[in-house]
């Protein structure tokens, strides 16, 4: 049934695409849907564009593992729409034609702006494409039982077909459909979650028995740790410094397992962990046992140890406020799972997933992921993220091009308001879905991106199939929008406007379709290469690049009369290079390269706090240095004043 629903949805989307494809004959139709989309449809399509894999998969997953810190992304992503509505929407509509570059270049006709803005559009779109494709691969593994790479190729092929057949018109209707369905089914998921309520023994409606992790009383003597029960033999001890935990490998009945050192009622204990071992010969072991048909994945996790002080509780249905209130109690304790990666004494590559306990008051405020009571750098990292999220939305090329699909500036305004309502409502739902996944025993400890679909599966296969099909469509739609933006940058901004290739309308559309194919193929390759990267984290970085490269140029163009073409060009290049450079040299990326994150030359992960002001400063300095002067030596702007 899951496969039937999924395939039915994909076939329907393709059918819609071919239908609109027959109607698309002009460049205006391909890039901007003829500028005739109704603002209500465009508003929900905005939501469809915006609620990407990062929102549905990534934010829910991050809330499920880091509590309120994941919700910070929801707040920042939504707040960004305020900048879009109040500052950017109508002026961008008035200035542009098909792309964001058109708007920036409308006053200058500068080759420098065309080149810099087109490259920036490509870079931001590709940064945004990578996590979407990774999300596609993550989805198809449990949904269709296909490998990650097959999922990425599948999404790429369908999206290229959609974009190459009809461009912005079909993309808009796909986004409208998907945005609407995503909000409707997320609401249903939250309602059934609240009706089921919270429990300390989640069993997914009787489908998966709850397993209480084992605890062994232990003795600690200096560096020596051993279980009280002598039938367990200590094999080795590992101090996981980055994860701040001590792990002990024990052996019993010939099976080796890892345990984490903890404390219970003031006495030392060893908590059961889960582990994946990759031996030198390539063999994989789950929890110390060789992988097989019956032992091919980790046990689902995530549960309450206590709810408002009670350790054996089943609340039954809860109101939304009652749910959040119970979760916020300092007497609520949640069992989360974190990981530590290292090589053990035998040279095996180990990933150990160990329990980490947090109280409700810690979960329901920022601080589990972002160390707000840490060092100055930790605090700057948090400010930097919030700044990039706030300023990034209004600078995303695939969002900006949607302003050209409506007939007037007031339609642009109204569609933004519909988007804010739809997106804001969805982001409130993410809090419930994330906390629901955190406490319902559905989490895959190795990958939090599937939190929301796995929560849906705990209510039965039908909801899982529907939610997964919509999540897949979420990826399809967002990738389609990004590829339209990227193909517009290549075919319209670079070939047509920058290189000044004289093309007919038909040739322009064909150039767009060829560009869509190339960018789509690139996205497939990157989606396979970046398997395992955190979806929301990557999108957060794409926001930082967009906010640094594009937003200073947009704002100064609109509000500072002395802005020059050279100033805009320099600002885009500086913002793009600085933000990308800081990201590539950051601790999080060092971790992804497999290098020691403490050796990263940049001590924080979010670049916005440096790259955004730097981009503004460069724009101001270069603009002042390149003012046009009249015969008396006065700047033209001063003379006009």
């Amino acid at each position, binding site marked *: 049934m899951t496969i039937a629903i999924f395939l039915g949805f994909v076939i329907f989307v393709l059918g819609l695409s071919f239908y609109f494809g027959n109607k698309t004959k002009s460049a205006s139709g391909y890039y901007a849907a003829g500028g005739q989309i109704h603002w209500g449809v465009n508003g929900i399509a905005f939501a469809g564009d915006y609620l990407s894999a990062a929102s549905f998969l990534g934010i829910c997953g991050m809330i499920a593992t880091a509590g309120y810190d994941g919700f910070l992304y929801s707040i920042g992503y*939504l707040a960004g729409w*305020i900048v879009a*509505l109040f500052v950017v929407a*109508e002026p961008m509509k008035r200035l542009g*034609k098909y792309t964001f570059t058109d708007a920036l270049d409308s006053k200058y006709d500068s080759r420098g702006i065309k080149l810099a803005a087109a490259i920036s559009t490509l870079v931001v779109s590709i940064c945004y494409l990578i996590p979407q494709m990774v999300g596609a691969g993550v989805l198809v593994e449990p949904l269709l039982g296909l490998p990650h790479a097959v999922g990425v190729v599948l999404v790429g092929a369908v999206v290229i077909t959609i974009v190459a057949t009809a461009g912005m018109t079909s993309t808009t209707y796909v986004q409208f459909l998907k945005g609407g369905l995503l909000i409707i089914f997320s609401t249903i998921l939250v309602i059934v979650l609240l009706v089921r309520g919270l429990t300390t023994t989640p069993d997914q409606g009787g489908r998966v028995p709850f397993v209480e992790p084992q605890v062994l009383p232990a003795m600690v003597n200096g560096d020596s740790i051993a279980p009280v029960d002598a039938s367990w033999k200590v094999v080795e001890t590992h101090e996981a410094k980055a994860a701040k935990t001590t792990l002990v490998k024990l052996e019993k009945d010939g099976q080796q397992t890892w345990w984490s050192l903890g404390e219970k009622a003031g006495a030392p204990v060893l908590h059961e962990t889960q582990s994946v071992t990759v031996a030198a010969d390539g063999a994989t072991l789950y929890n110390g046992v060789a992988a097989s048909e019956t032992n091919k994945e980790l046990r689902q996790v995530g549960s309450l140890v206590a709810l408002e002080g009670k350790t054996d509780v089943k609340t039954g249905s809860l109101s939304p406020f009652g749910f959040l209130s119970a979760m916020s109690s300092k007497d609520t304790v949640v069992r989360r799972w974190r990981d530590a990666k290292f090589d053990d004494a035998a040279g095996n590559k180990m990933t150990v997933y160990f329990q980490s306990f947090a109280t409700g008051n810690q979960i329901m405020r920022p601080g589990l992921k972002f160390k707000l009571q840490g060092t100055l750098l930790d605090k700057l990292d948090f*400010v930097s993220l919030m700044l990039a999220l706030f300023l990034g939305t209004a600078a995303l090329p695939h969002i900006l091009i949607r302003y050209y699909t409506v007939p007037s500036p*007031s339609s642009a305004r109204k569609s933004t308001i519909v988007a804010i309502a739809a997106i*804001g409502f969805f982001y409130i739902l993410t809090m419930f879905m994330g906390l629901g996944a955190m406490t319902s025993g559905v989490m895959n400890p190795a990958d939090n991106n599937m939190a929301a679909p796995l929560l849906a599966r705990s209510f039965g296969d039908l909801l899982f199939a529907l939610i997964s099909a919509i999540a897949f469509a979420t990826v399809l739609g967002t990738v389609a929008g990004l590829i339209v933006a990227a193909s517009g940058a290549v075919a319209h901004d670079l070939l*047509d406007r920058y290189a000044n290739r004289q093309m007919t309308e038909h040739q322009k559309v064909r150039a767009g379709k060829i560009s869509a194919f190339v960018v789509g193929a690139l996205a497939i390759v990157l989606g396979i290469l970046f398997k395992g990267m955190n979806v929301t984290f990557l999108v957060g970085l794409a926001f930082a690049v967009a906010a640094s490269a594009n937003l200073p140029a947009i704002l100064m163009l609109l509000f500072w009369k002395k802005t020059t073409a050279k100033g805009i060009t320099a600002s885009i290049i500086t913002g793009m290079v600085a933000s990308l450079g800081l990201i590539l040299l950051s601790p999080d990326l060092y971790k992804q390269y497999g290098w020691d994150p403490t050796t990263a030359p940049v001590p924080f992960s979010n670049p916005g706090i440096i790259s955004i002001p730097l981009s503004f400063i460069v724009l101001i300095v270069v603009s002042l240095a390149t003012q046009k002067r009249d015969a008396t030596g006065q700047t033209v702007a001063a003379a006009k004043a």
Partner: protein
Amino acid sequence: MLHEPAAKMGRDPAAAYKTRLGVWMFLAYSILYVGFVAINLLRPQLMEGTIFAGLNLAVVYGFGLIIVALIQALLYDTMCNRRERALAESAGEKDEQ
């Protein structure tokens, strides 16, 4: 090569008013947003305090930022519509004269 917008647009006499209003509304929201970031930075433990219907400040402020965004958006649209109508009517009266 011609390079006009995808959809033809006339002059918008309310543009200056809408820009001014938008900037003020953006600044008002920014103050709320900066307040949220500042509390988290300077007094993060304040976010734990229960302030309404069993909800803590973090949840109320976070949801509040989302709801205020929508309220401000609707207010902005209403004010823009009113000004656009008023200017259109006065332009119509001038044409009749």
